[in-house]
């Protein structure tokens, strides 16, 4: 039981937890999964939103998918291209990592998101996601500046070099 009356965030390591999630997905369940990380900003935020995941037959460009890049290492990113068996992924909040994987590495698709504590699903078939996706993927050439404007922070490496800078809360 939780130790006190307040809720605490329980962290389970991905490499153990997500394979169980994938197993449930393959049994035909949908999964509500709390999201960590900033890779899908600005639509999704670290430690705030949940994804609704389901099994996927034929992933398509533009889908937000859960992929296992190597054993135990999972990401939830958008598919930006599919060439034959090769899939290129890019998190909406990422600039130039673009991991690649195969179609077989795609474990689930996000069919919607519960954002900002809401019980209402932002479906990936819905207007909000589609309009956002249309704009955000096309604005990739200036994504660096948009992300900086939305999330202004001094990068860690700059903070370390200049001892006089104030501690910045990311």
């Amino acid at each position, binding site marked *: *039981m*939780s130790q006190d*009356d307040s809720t605490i965030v*329980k962290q*389970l*390591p991905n490499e*153990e*937890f997500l394979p*169980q*999630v994938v197993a*449930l997905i393959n049994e*035909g*369940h*949908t*999964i*509500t*999964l*709390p999201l960590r990380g900033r890779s899908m900003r600005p639509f999704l935020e670290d430690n705030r939103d*949940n994804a*609704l995941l389901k099994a996927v037959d034929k992933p398509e460009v533009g889908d937000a998918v859960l992929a296992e890049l190597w054993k135990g290492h999972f990401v939830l990113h958008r598919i930006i291209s599919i060439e034959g068996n090769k899939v290129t992924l890019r998190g909406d909040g990422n600039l130039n990592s673009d991991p690649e994987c195969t179609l077989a590495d795609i474990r689930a698709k996000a069919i919607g998101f*519960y954002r900002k504590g809401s019980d209402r699903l932002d479906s990936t078939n819905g207007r909000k996601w589609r309009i956002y996706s249309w704009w955000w993927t096309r604005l990739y050439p200036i994504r660096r500046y948009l992300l900086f404007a939305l999330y202004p922070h001094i990068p860690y490496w700059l903070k370390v070099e200049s001892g006089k800078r104030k501690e910045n809360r990311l």
Partner: protein
Amino acid sequence: MMTEKEDMKTKKGFKLRTVCGENIIVAEGIENVDFSRIISMNETSAYLWKNIQGIDFDENTLAGLLLEEYEVDEATARSDAKALVEKWLEAGIIE
């Protein structure tokens, strides 16, 4: 006839799963499994939960189970059972 302490049951839609070696109560429908609001249970709580599935129970049932399984005196078993029922009611997993 109304008795003061009515029998309780576990609520439908809450399933105990073992995830990463932990006992976790997950809200589950026929299709969806919701990991966004989980309830973590220690061994004792999980043991009791498993043993009251599908039955009407009250604090005495839980105290009895504790006495069967653990080396504990009756007073402790009763107070632990009472505390647990309160927690479970608060968590919304029993009715």
